[in-house]
């Protein structure tokens, strides 16, 4: 019945085509033009990866809720490798400062930059953030220096200040051995600024602003716990209407990074983070796809030109494909209005599959023309006899795509809908417009006069002349290959899909190996502080958790002890004079004596540093001594210059008074609570609804799926509602695998159903599925021997291979049945089937050279799968048909 309907439909179609070929062509062209216009005006791209999965899934809902509540926190990470020791850290800090300065010039592209925190950022309770040891050292130092500074304010004389500083450095009044050596560098920096100002003032060079500024003190840079890496986090502006979302910010960051690398050639730094990895993946994918497409178009074009003889027939097929694609774009615009990151590849799918329909029609037309039939008769035969096979083949491919339409994996579901419909549109165009074009071109004698030579594969006829022997050989080959089948695994590691040598991948791995940080972290949400603390402790106890990051992690420890120390130190400072001391002229001789004493103290310090081999500090000190000597010489030569120092003296009085007041504010501040933490921190950790997030960073490399599974399982044992990138990736990867498996099984079932409807014969179904089954066994066996595993990029090849694997068998069976004499290899059908598989192989073959390892593996699976499918179709099926004498008992 199905056959009769098909026959009637095709006969009706032929009547229409033969009578009004121009009308059919113009209708298609107008429809395609309208579709193109509509698509150009209304079709948009949404490259938001979060929308690839159904928003109704509970884990995705939780993730989106967290994103909405706490804002976008998908950062770019600059990883700066610190050199050895303090000096190395200072180098990394300078690199970060230089880079930050460059990036701050682009607020429209880089919305946030986090790499350090200053005392000013931390508010009045800043000192509580010091460690207990540091707090004790600080309190001791304030106790020793504070009263002297207050005393000095009472006189306010610059020579006295130099005298006091010299005394302090010489060890008078303080216990120099207990001072923290880490304070030496900032102390020298402060002193350097002070002495520079004296020298500049004496030289008559104008300089303004404070001499001692407390606002830039207490800077804490975000080093990893082992101090090896300094991590900068950047929040880029995102544009989801472009393919690469962060292309602009990424280019800006990379340019700034390169300029900073040029400025600090010894420091290694690189860019990573999920958005960068995704952008790099997109860039390498696009580049690889473009190369693959150009290569395949050239090779397929050459092949078509040889097989289809001349350029016109291939052009007609490609023209029809173009019409079908335009219509598919129109369909997408009308139904979905948007293309996502997966559905955008539908065009490639149509090139791979849709073109095959045209190949079968044209090959049969060529065969009939070669046999001496006229143009009209050749087109009619091509349509009437190839049409059923083309329709059945197209429907099997449609099944593979429509099988995923109801999946929760929205990205794939949309690709399924667009790809499946696109194939249907290809079918319609190839069975209407292409015959009409062949008719018009043939009638006008536009095709070459000579007939194509390569239309049959008689050599294969000789190979399958002894089908029993051929099948025995193939069975033996299969048995030899079979152990490889059991070696194939599924690899979930997304990092291993990326191109080798990418900077983002290299620095991601360095972060994993060299630090307690990760660009992937899970998120748990707590209603209040008590709940947050409870969860934090539970998560910290898990072996799979490296560290947690929450507001309470930023609350200082031992605050009561520190408060006592600070209060004692504040009392030691005493009363700060309320107004600066009146300006008095600076006495030149006293100034010279003060400088002399300071110089002697610095000299002593330099000797100690020299003995200890502290080269960097020594160089800093040497430069300071040089400036002091310069100032001394100027004043010694011309004592009247001392009057220039009077305004500087006033400035220093103001600065020191301000610094002491600031210090008192810090020392007398009450212990820090959550509400006192900096607004920037609170914005990260407190959501719009007042709930608090707890970031959970893994202790292991969770790019490895087994470790990701354990991590997520552990977290869920504490909080079943836990979310974040690791949870999403874990769930999405499993969803993808489930979807692909489901699609493969459903495709197989639907294809079998279609075959049943077409032939109502189990034997037909078995025979149609035979090349596919054998081809799949060969594919899996070869994959095992070649060490090629399935992954999230190449698994989609399986439903496509199922569809095209059945396609060849359907054409063979139809032609075999029609021939009845077994001379299949004298016809154009094997060549058409070979050409179909060859176009698929060539199309995906370009991917073999892809840098993106996921794409390359997809290329390998498609090429090997098409090859095994083709060989099994050409060798196994005809041999089996001969042995079973298929078709001979009928009619």
């Amino acid at each position, binding site marked *: 019945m199905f056959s009769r309907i098909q026959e009637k439909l095709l006969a009706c179609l032929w009547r229409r085509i033969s009578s009004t070929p121009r009308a059919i062509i113009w209708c298609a062209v107008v429809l395609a033009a309208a579709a193109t216009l509509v698509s150009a005006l209304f079709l948009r791209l949404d490259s938001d990866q979060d929308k690839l999965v159904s928003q109704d899934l509970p884990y995705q809902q939780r993730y989106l809720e967290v994103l909405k509540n706490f804002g976008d926190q998908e950062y770019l990470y600059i990883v700066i490798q610190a050199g050895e020791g303090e000096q190395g850290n200072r180098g990394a800090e300078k690199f970060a400062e230089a880079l930050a300065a460059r990036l701050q010039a682009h607020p429209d592209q880089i919305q946030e930059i986090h790499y350090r925190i200053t005392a000013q950022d931390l508010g009045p309770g800043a000192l509580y953030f010091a460690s207990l040891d540091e707090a004790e050292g600080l309190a001791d130092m304030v106790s020793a220096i504070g009263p002297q500074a207050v005393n000095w304010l009472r006189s306010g004389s610059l020579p006295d200040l130099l005298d006091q500083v010299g005394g302090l450095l010489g*060890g008078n009044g303080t*216990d*120099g*051995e*207990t001072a923290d*050596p880490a304070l030496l560098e900032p102390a020298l920096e402060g002193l350097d600024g002070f002495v520079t100002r004296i020298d500049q003032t004496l030289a008559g060079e104008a300089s303004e602003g404070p001499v001692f500024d407390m606002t830039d003190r207490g800077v804490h840079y975000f080093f990893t716990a082992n101090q090896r890496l300094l991590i900068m986090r950047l929040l880029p502006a995102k544009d989801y209407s472009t393919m690469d979302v962060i292309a602009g910010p990424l280019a800006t960051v990379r340019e700034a990074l390169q300029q900073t690398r040029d400025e600090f050639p010894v420091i290694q730094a690189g860019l990573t983070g999920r958005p960068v990895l995704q952008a790099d993946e997109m860039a390498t994918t696009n580049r690889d796809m473009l190369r693959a497409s150009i290569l395949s178009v050239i090779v397929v074009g050459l092949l078509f030109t040889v097989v289809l003889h001349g350029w016109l027939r291939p052009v007609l097929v490609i023209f029809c494909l173009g019409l079908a694609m335009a219509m598919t774009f129109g369909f997408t615009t009308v139904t979905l209005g948007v293309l996502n990151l997966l559905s955008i590849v539908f065009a490639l799918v149509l090139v791979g599959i849709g073109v095959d329909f045209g190949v079968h029609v044209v090959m049969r037309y060529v065969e009939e023309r070669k046999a001496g039939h006229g143009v009209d008769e050749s087109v009619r035969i091509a349509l009437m006899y190839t049409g059923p096979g083309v329709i059945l083949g197209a429907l099997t491919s449609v099944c593979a795509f429509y099988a995923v339409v109801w999946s929760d994996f929205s990205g794939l579901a949309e690709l399924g809908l667009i790809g499946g419909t696109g194939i249907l549109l290809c079918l319609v165009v190839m069975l209407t417009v292409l015959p009409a074009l062949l008719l018009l071109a043939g009638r006008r004698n536009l095709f070459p006069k000579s007939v194509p030579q390569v239309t049959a594969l008689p050599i294969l006829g000789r190979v399958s002349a002894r089908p029993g022997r051929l099948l025995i050989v193939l069975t033996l080959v299969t048995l030899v290959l079979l152990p490889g089948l059991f070696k194939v695994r599924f690899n979930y590691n997304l990092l291993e899909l990326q191109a080798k040598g990418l900077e983002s991948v290299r620095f991601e791995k360095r972060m994993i190996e060299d630090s307690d940080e990760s660009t992937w972290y899970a998120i748990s949400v707590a209603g209040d502080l008590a709940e947050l603390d409870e969860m934090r402790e539970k998560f910290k106890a898990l072996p799979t958790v490296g560290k947690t990051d929450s507001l309470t992690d930023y609350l200082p420890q031992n605050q009561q002890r520190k408060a006592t120390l600070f209060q004692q130190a504040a009392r030691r400072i005493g009363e700060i004079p309320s107004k600066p001391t009146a300006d008095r002229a600076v006495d030149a001789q006293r100034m010279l004596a003060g400088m002399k004493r300071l110089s002697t103290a610095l*000299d*002593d310090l*330099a*000797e*100690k*540093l*020299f*003995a*200890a*081999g*502290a*080269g*960097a500090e*020594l*160089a800093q000190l*040497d430069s300071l001594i040089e400036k002091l000597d310069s100032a001394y010489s100027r004043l010694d030569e011309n004592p009247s210059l001392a009057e220039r120092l009077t305004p500087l003296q006033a400035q220093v009085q103001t600065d020191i008074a301000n610094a002491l007041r600031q210090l008192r504010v810090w020392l007398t501040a009450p212990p820090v609570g959550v509400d006192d933490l900096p607004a920037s921190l609170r914005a990260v950790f407190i959501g719009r609804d007042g709930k608090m997030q707890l970031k959970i960073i893994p202790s292991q490399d969770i790019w490895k799926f087994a470790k990701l599974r354990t991590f997520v399982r552990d977290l869920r044992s504490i909080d079943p509602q836990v979310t974040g990138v690791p949870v999403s990736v874990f769930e999405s990867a499993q969803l993808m695998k489930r979807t692909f498996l489901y699609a493969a099984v459903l495709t197989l079932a639907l294809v079998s159903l279609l075959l049943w409807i077409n032939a109502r014969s189990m034997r037909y179904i078995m025979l149609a599925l035979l090349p596919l089954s054998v081809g799949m066994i060969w594919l899996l066996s070869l994959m095992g021997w070649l060490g090629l595993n399935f992954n999230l990029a190449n698994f989609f090849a399986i439903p496509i291979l199922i569809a095209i694997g059945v396609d060849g068998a359907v054409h063979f069976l139809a032609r075999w049945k029609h021939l009845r004499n077994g001379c299949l290899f004298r016809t154009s059908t094997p060549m058409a089937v070979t050409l179909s598989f060859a176009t698929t192989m060539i199309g995906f073959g370009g991917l073999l050279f892809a840098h993106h390892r996921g794409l390359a593996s997809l290329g390998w699976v498609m090429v090997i799968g098409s090859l095994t499918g083709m060989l099994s179709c050409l060798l196994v099926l005809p041999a089996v048909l001969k042995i079973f004498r298929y078709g001979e008992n009928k009619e």
Partner: protein
Amino acid sequence: MLRYSLFFLLFLLVAVAPAHAAETFDFVIIQPGQPGTSEDAQPVMDSLAAYIQEKLGGEVAVHGRYFNRVKDADAYLADNHPRWGIVQLGYFLGRGEASCMTPLAATRPGGSESDMWRMLVVKGGPDEWQSAKGTVYGTMLFQPDVAARLLFGKGAGDLPFSLEGTFRPLRALRSVLRGKATGVILDQPQYDAVQSLPQSDDLKVLQASDPLPTSAVVAFGPTAEIHDRLRGILQDMQNDPAAADLLQLLQTEGFGPADSRLETMRENGA
């Protein structure tokens, strides 16, 4: 009876009293020419003493002293009997035999197992040490004969210039640059530090020693089991976070096994 009573008291005094006295395991650090004073360094000595005492289980009392003048160190050793110490190479070779020093371990200044001494002069100065005249300064020159043999293979009196110990090698270096001194001899950390200064471009190395042992940890007098324990404690310090600050103050990255070159050099009369 009185005689028996006296014998009994004497027995108590000789045999029992030491058993009740706490054992001491004092040390001394002798670094001639290093900056500072004994008083400045005492907090560091106390910290090291407390660390060692704690690691030894608190069963012995440990006290330490620091000397940067040979005369003071000699005087102290004449009147006191520290059990161990850290001594500069020159002092070990000059006084090692007399003070019965046995190497236990070696320091690692800057992480290095060896030191090297270099004689520096201004670039326009003599091209070989035999042509140098005047005075050459250095922190290791408080034992001038030892230093002369290690660096020039001759006694100090056989050199064409005089050697003088200094506590201020940087000032001596500046004197050399100003032409007020002939040269300066620097050990490895000092030489490394000079490389960070712009003035290093105006200097040249006239003579360099062979690689030399670093300052040694030594036992004074006969060694005992406690010295072995000390050696283990010192060698473990670089892996102990609690010792990090202490090592920094002692200007060493840690301690390694005793340098076998010390005994050879002492036997050869270096």
